[in-house]
């Protein structure tokens, strides 16, 4: 049953009808673009939500014009209520983590470029691939629908801790229908990503063209492959977890709700559920999810850096092994989210060591990047700027991991803005920079037109400086003991920190506005940009040896054969300082790994 479309996959006819071409398309390239569009819309929603949150945090009783239109009870007269703040916060986190950081770098670019980079015509199971997108789309719609249905979205945060997620509306607005919708949405999302992982893994293992050994895959392809393996494991655990919560809601079971809980003076009709069970199930998904968001970025950035450096990384293998190590270790470290959760203090130590150890592969990756720059001939453009910015962000967000990896320090920093700063920098901003770099780098191939370089650089400068202005202060707030997930800071202790919050708010508004430049650039270039050549960056991997934009079967019925390692730069060849993977030309090089 699972290969019903395998045959069609390898020789499916060119699409004719509009529906087949653009809506329910089987073409991995169209699906990739669809994912990208979804991520773009989601990112804008998430950004607007973060604006409102920031305004509320800076000026708590200020009326945000128009907000009352979104929810009359949530924001009477535009003044945000505490629960509405939490509802927006939950949606911001959920949208960004699931529908932006997972879909854009992995599903969007992976779908478009993985098959091309391995030299395949398409994914082996195009129908599953199509379902994968449309299921994800429905998941997004279900999530957004909670804005208008019932008493609004859930306020439980993107981690949806039990039993707050399971006791129902008695726990507050959005905890009834809102949670159920959230769980349904995420369960659907899991299905979509599992279908995607199925395609990614089989594509990488089985559809490589002649000569494309695993070690000859570009780093981006490796990143997508490793990510899909992580996703396969993580999402197939989150899915059942969501089912259990839904059962607690609609069927009255007690998986997560303990005995003798009293809300609003009402004894809850549940017994014996385990609070920590949810945390274990969730974080077993949740921490790998962080790497699902960042590993594609690592691969993409390496891919782009090499092209702009005009020389390969110091070692392709080491980078691949490091990404693999991150993937494997990520399952052994999830407990560091639960140091003070009441789990066995010995297991806290057991989780602490792998968490510290995981910094080693991360450090190696950074060292390889930085020292590969030595002796390079770096071509500065929007793509490479964002790639370098990614490294800077990855470092800044990474070092704070040293703190949070230690249970003793976590006593002070847990649930403070330090944590918020940490993951926003390392998995939020860094991953976003990866997405931007990829967009500036690959947009010519995807849409056949170059993006505007000037606008790209303006976008980069505002984003780079802006995000530092936003997220570095988060760390300071955290060290001063500013708790996260507070809708306002009424207590005397936090009053002195309000000016910092206002600064951050201003920075956030400006940086957010800068992203609109990107959106404009993307849309404008899509239609009126200057047409792109087949290989504008003088790059070597297979996506550049086909037409721009690629034909429906990627290589026009001719199959490339791979003669070289992916990154043959800094050599003397007939075309210049590089040799394409698919060109049989023999050049003197010491890079080939036999």
């Amino acid at each position, binding site marked *: 049953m699972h290969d019903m479309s395998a045959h069609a996959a390898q020789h499916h006819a060119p699409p004719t009808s509009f529906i087949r071409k653009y809506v329910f398309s089987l073409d991995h390239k169209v699906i990739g673009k669809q994912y990208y569009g979804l991520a773009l819309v989601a990112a804008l929603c998430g950004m607007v939500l973060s604006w409102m949150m920031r305004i509320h945090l800076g000026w708590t009783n200020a009326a945000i014009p128009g907000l009352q239109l979104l929810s009359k009870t949530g924001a009477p007269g535009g003044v945000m209520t505490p629960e509405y703040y*939490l509802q927006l916060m939950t949606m911001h986190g959920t949208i960004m983590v699931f529908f932006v950081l997972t879909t854009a770098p992995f599903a969007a670019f992976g779908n478009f470029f993985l098959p091309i980079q391995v030299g395949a015509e398409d994914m082996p199971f195009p129908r599953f691939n199509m379902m994968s997108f449309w299921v994800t789309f429905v998941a997004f719609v279900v999530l957004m629908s909670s804005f208008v249905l019932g008493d609004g979205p859930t306020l439980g945060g993107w981690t949806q801790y039990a039993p707050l997620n399971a006791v129902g509306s008695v726990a507050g607005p959005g905890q009834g229908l809102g949670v159920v919708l959230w769980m349904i949405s995420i369960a659907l999302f899991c299905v979509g990503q599992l279908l995607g992982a199925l395609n990614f893994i089989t594509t990488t293992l089985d559809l490589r063209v002649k000569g494309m050994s695993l070690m000859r895959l570009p780093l981006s392809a490796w990143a997508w492959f490793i990510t899909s393996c992580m996703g396969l494991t993580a999402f197939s655990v989150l899915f059942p977890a969501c089912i259990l919560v839904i059962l607690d809601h609609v069927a009255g079971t007690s998986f997560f709700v303990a005995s003798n809980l*009293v809300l609003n003076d009402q004894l809850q009709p549940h017994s014996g559920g385990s609070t*920590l069970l949810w945390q274990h199930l969730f974080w077993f998904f949740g921490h790998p999810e962080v790497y699902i968001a960042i590993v594609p970025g690592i691969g993409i950035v390496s891919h782009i850096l090499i092209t702009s450096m005009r020389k390969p990384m110091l070692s392709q293998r080491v980078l691949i092994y490091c990404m693999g190590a991150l993937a494997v270790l990520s399952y052994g470290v999830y407990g560091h989210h639960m140091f003070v959760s*009441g789990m066995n203090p010995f297991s*806290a130590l057991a989780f602490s060591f792998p968490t510290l150890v995981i910094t080693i592969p991360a450090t190696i990756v950074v060292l390889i990047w930085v020292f590969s720059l*030595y002796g390079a001939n770096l071509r500065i453009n929007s793509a490479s700027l964002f790639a370098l910015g990614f490294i800077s962000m990855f470092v800044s967000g990474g070092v704070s991991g040293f703190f949070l990896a*230690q249970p003793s320090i976590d006593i002070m920093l847990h649930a403070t803005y330090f944590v918020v700063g940490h993951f926003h920098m390392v998995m939020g901003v860094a991953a976003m920079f990866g997405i931007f770099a990829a967009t500036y780098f690959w947009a010519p191939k995807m849409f056949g037109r170059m993006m505007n370089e000037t606008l790209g650089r303006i976008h980069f400068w505002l984003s780079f400086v802006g995000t530092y202005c936003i997220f570095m202060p988060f760390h300071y707030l955290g060290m001063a003991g500013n708790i996260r997930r*507070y809708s306002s800071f009424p207590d005397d202790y936090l009053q002195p920190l309000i000016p910092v919050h206002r600064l951050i708010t201003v920075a956030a508004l400006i940086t957010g506005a800068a992203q609109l430049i990107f959106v404009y650039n993307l849309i404008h270039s899509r239609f009126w940009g200057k047409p792109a050549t087949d290989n504008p960056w003088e790059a070597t991997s297979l996506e550049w040896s086909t037409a721009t934009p690629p034909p429906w079967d990627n290589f026009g019925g001719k199959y490339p054969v791979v003669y070289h390692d992916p990154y043959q730069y800094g050599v003397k060849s007939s075309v210049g300082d590089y040799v394409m993977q698919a060109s049989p030309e023999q050049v003197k090089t010491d890079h080939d790994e036999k």
Partner: protein
Amino acid sequence: MAKFFAVTIIIIAILSAIPILRHTWVAPEDISTHGYLIDEQMSETMAEAGIAFLAAQFILAIFIWMFSNRGRDAKIKKFPGGATGLVIAALLLVGAEVLALGVFGVKAWADQYLTPPSAGAMPIQVQAGQFAFYFRYPGPDGTFGATHPELINEGSQNFFGLDPEHDPDSRDDIVTAEMAIPVNKEIHLLMHAKDVGHSFFVRELRVQQDFVPGLDVSLHFTATKVGKYEIVCTQLCGLGHYNMKAYLYVYSQEDFENWVKKEQAMQ
């Protein structure tokens, strides 16, 4: 452009480091017997992470400065050290750092979590509910009355579901909305969650622990400085989370006894 970028990175790195070096924003002064371990661990980590941060950003900036836009026929060089050198360096440096932090970290952690409270520790029960903490002292008889969740009625201030009518133990229990403890006396805090997950965090005490619904956990600590401190909830517990707090009063022994008398009178 590239050189400008390099300079920007360096400026940002330095600006980021300044507030740390000038201790502009730091945790409030520690008032616990175990806190110094955490603080030492913190500053140690800060030093190592800080060096790593600055070094990485600087090298990145310098290389960007040196090796950008060198013209089409620039000679491409390879880093002499090679990958293996870097890997070994990373393994040694980070490995050592990780081991050091990990091992010392255990001490700070163990002091609070792996050692049982001393026999003489004073038991206090704290119950977290949406959205306030309530505290219970056993009273003269030294025993806590049994709790009956079905009797909980916040309207009549019966937050713990006590049943004084039938349960003599509970009649002298002292229930308060503020926490008072004698200075330099070990406290054994019995933590109970009434509804959903909450957390007990006192910055000055260097204490943070989640309440687990259905599972009563306990903490022990000793305060060494008289004063008024803030207890906050750090686990998202619902719409009032931002406003869920109570105050901790550390009193001298006699002040504490007076406080107990006062509270007893109000029960």
